[in-house]
């Protein structure tokens, strides 16, 4: 029986399995290709859809538990774009994301699984987009990034389902702009964000203290929504007594509305005092007359 790709790689790194042996055994790419072939069969028309396909996978691989389940993700460069919907051509042109597990991530995952082993009904699925494993409940079809027994686990619906529920992008945006809703909602959003900007997330910090990962996630989320937040804050700070609040005048700076007449250049600096008061020459009578005329005009 061939070794799973991840295990093989790890053994290679330790020098337990030689390169020749490794070549004889089927590589992870081949495993992926099997999945890719499988992938076309399901009646799903959306290529990124994972659930049905995974169901199928789990049925297929139910016996071969050592093989990794891989969540197929098209490696389309446009997939971060929320206005882009990957079509078959994307798959043809760009292929699927390669599953390249990081040894560090594997180590951490192993440590976590030792501490919090997966309960029955849960499967480990590799996500090539993030190069991380996530955990999938075959019965309820829920997913989580951590082992479901982990104290800080967030079990939620898969991102695709949420996206299908939300449907349009406009709704998604609205969800994004909502600052603090229920915890569930927040979690969903996080998952959404993860799946959408997956290629940027090279975080493989699957540590015991997942807080670090969580924080990183939050930070990224913040970065995405920052512009909007600033706008909101600006709006919130607008004084109701500010003319900008109740009319069409633009918001002014601190000097807007000050009396501009009698400026130092044309007239006397009436604000001068002390030594400055003694250093201010008056304008010439011609300048005074001109300034007066200007003031009358205004």
């Amino acid at each position: 029986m061939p070794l799973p790709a991840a295990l093989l790689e790890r053994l290679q790194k330790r020098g337990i399995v030689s390169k020749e042996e490794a070549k004889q055994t089927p590589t992870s790419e081949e495993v992926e290709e099997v999945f890719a072939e499988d992938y076309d069969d399901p009646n799903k028309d959306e290529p990124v859809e994972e659930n049905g396909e995974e169901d199928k996978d789990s049925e297929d691989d139910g016996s071969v538990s050592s093989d990794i389940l891989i969540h197929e993700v098209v490696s389309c460069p446009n997939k971060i774009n929320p206005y882009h919907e990957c079509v078959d051509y994307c798959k043809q042109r760009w292929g699927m994301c390669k599953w390249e597990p990081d040894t560090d991530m594997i180590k951490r995952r192993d440590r976590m699984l030792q501490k919090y082993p997966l309960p029955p009904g849960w499967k480990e699925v590799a996500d090539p987009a993030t190069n991380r494993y996530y955990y999938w409940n075959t019965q309820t079809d829920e997913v989580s990034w951590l082992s479901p027994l982990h104290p800080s686990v967030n079990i939620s619906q898969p991102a695709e389902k949420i996206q299908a529920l939300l449907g349009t992008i406009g709704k998604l945006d609205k969800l994004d702009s909502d600052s603090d809703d229920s915890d569930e909602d927040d979690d969903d959003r996080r998952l959404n964000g993860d799946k959408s900007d997956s290629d940027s997330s090279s975080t493989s910090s699957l540590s015991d203290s997942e807080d670090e990962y969580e924080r990183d996630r939050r930070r990224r989320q913040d970065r995405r929504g920052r512009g909007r937040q600033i706008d909101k804050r600006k709006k919130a700070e607008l004084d109701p007594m500010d003319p900008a609040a109740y009319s069409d005048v633009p918001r002014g700076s601190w000097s807007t509305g000050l009396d501009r007449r009698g400026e130092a250049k044309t007239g006397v600096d009436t604000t001068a005092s002390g030594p400055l008061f003694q250093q201010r020459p008056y304008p010439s009578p011609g300048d005074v007359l001109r300034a007066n005329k200007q003031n009358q005009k205004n």
Partner: protein
Amino acid sequence: MSYMLQHLTNGWQVDQAIMSEEDRVLIIRFGHDWDPTCMVMDETLYKCAEKMKNFAVIYLVDITEVPDFNKMYELYDPCTIMFFYRNKHIMIDLGTGNNNKINWAMEDVQEFIDIVETVYRGARKGRGLVVSPKDYSTKYRY
């Protein structure tokens, strides 16, 4: 003696008087002819007008008749003397804190001539601020 000195009756005349004077200091007294303070000052001005005709010329401006400068020049004293040279206001450090004008009536003719001469010499050198030969701050009065 205000009737012996030339009056300027509107802002334009004031402007022209200053513009037309090339190499003489222009002394303008802002106030009212009927004001007692101004009467004292006008007396002094009349007495020294002849003596400094080569380097200074004196005009009187009624601030009620010509209110154009009241705001800009802060003319709220009964009598105000200001100096101009080549369309430029010349400040004098009198020690009073207000370098822009003489806002009291001077009785001593020679004192006033000295001040005007200092202004003339300083202004000729391009100075905008000259120091009065005598300190008029209150600390020397008491």
